[in-house]
């Protein structure tokens, strides 16, 4: 159920993002979701792609600092309170969220959310117990 997320260290300089996405494009790697966390000097680009191993390798070959982390992808009902149900379940189990980001999938009435937590396996159990739909890696990579 764990999804591999690729994180890339980027300096805040123009053109860096274009370069990363360019390299992925040239290598026929499809991006399903992305988010950027930034400070004044640097940013961390987080990517969900269809071929995470390949993405890690080609970016490293191009001189980027890259790491691979396990994250969880969930689908919540796209209506008020939909996300809250999922977050409450994790909170109840005392699972802290390091960061999260939502993205647009091709499904119509569900919102997709990536969660980065300290104990991903425990989080998946809790989410399942609360009938929150956790997406498989295959599903996410194919989006």
């Amino acid at each position, binding site marked *: 159920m764990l999804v591999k997320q690729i994180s890339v260290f980027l*300096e805040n300089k123009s053109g860096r993002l274009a370069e990363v996405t360019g390299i992925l494009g040239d290598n026929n790697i499809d991006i399903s979701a992305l988010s950027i966390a930034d400070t004044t000097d640097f940013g961390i680009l987080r990517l969900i792609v269809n071929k995470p191993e390949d993405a890690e390798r080609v970016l490293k070959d191009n001189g980027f600092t890259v790491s691979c982390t396990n994250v969880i992808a969930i689908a919540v009902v796209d209506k008020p309170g939909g996300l809250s149900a999922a977050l409450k379940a994790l909170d109840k189990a005392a699972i802290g969220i390091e960061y999260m980001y939502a993205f647009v999938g091709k499904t119509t009435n569900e919102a997709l959310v990536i969660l980065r937590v300290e104990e991903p396996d425990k989080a998946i159990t809790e989410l399942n117990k609360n009938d929150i739909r956790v997406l498989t890696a295959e599903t996410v990579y194919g989006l």
Partner: protein
Amino acid sequence: MNYWNPTCECMSRDEMTKLQLERLINTVKRVYHNVPFYRNKMQQVGLVPEDIKSMEDLSKLPFTTKQDLRDNYPYGLFATPMSEIVRLHASSGTTGKPTVVGYTRNDITTWSEVMARTLAAAGADKQSFIQIAYGYGLFTGGLGVHYGAERIGASVIPISGGNTKKQVQIMKDFGTTVLACTPSYALYLAETLEEMGINKDELKLKSGVFGAEPWTENMRKEIENKLGIMAMDIYGLSEVIGPGVAYECKCQNGLHIPEDHFIPEIINPETGEILQEGKSGELVLTTITKEGLPLIRYRTRDVSSLNYKKCDCGRTLVKMTKPCGRTDDMLIIRGVNVFPSQIESVLLEIGDTAPHYLLIVDRIGTLDVLEIQVEMSDRLFSDEVKRLEDLEKKIKNAIESTLGLSAKIRLVEPKTIERSEGKAKRVIDKRNLK
């Protein structure tokens, strides 16, 4: 233990002093009679060569500085007719006119001798393959090591600097056993080795002699681990002779000075007063065998101290500590004296940071600001902003507690700080204080 010349390297102190005095007296006579600059300087303080009768009298002689060499550019301090000079070298002259140094045939022999001692102390012998990746040319590094390596009868690979991938390929194919280059270039070669997918075990490398720029113990460890060798520090400056002015033995706890050729002193750089054994100050060297360009009490601007205790390796030659900075590359930032090497030590102690960093000093209004760029590496990286900010804070705090100076830490992408194939560029000073 490997000596090249045990007679000179293990001489008793009494014999050494006797030999030095005899040679010093001769040198002073020669410069007094052949070099107007020295004669004038001695006359100004009322000295004649006959006043130099004991080693203590050395301290009566005036100092010589790099500025004196520049003022007498190009050949003004030479003590022999140009017909006796068989070689000229020059410093890069980044801070003004270059300084020119000249060698007679005997000087080349002396240079070969001290470099042979240097290489032998690093374990080289006639079976060795010595890859010389110091630049050849006006810079003394390449040819200096070259002559020493030929003297001991090793197989010399005179590849010179640059062309890093080829260096690695040749190192592997030719079976290089001893590498000679700057320490920063040694690290760069180690990185290139990794990039090319060559394991250090595929090399025959055993030791390296590294010098021409200051480096730290941590950097030594990193070179030793990455290349699987003993990394020896060597010291030299073109004005005195080039590489071979001091060299480490396998004890790696100080650099032996061939005192039968060079007399060292440590002085307080402010007052010129001679400091006792063990005290840290500016290294001053007097050459006592050189013919072309003898130097009397030359101010090296390198900070070091001396230790006369007999070394575990058996050498009786005095040892100088690894120079811990130059009195003239010292940065003064908000009144704080900063040596780039101090910052390097701090970065390495934080752990895992490859020593690729750049100091940028600027003045905003009337305030000096120091920015330290540190290259990101796979091991330091995290997908969480918080962790990276913690890393910046940790470096900042460590710098602050070591130097008493606050600095802005900036994490930069790997390989964005310029790699030099000679001396590493560690500082950009944007202040226009002159």
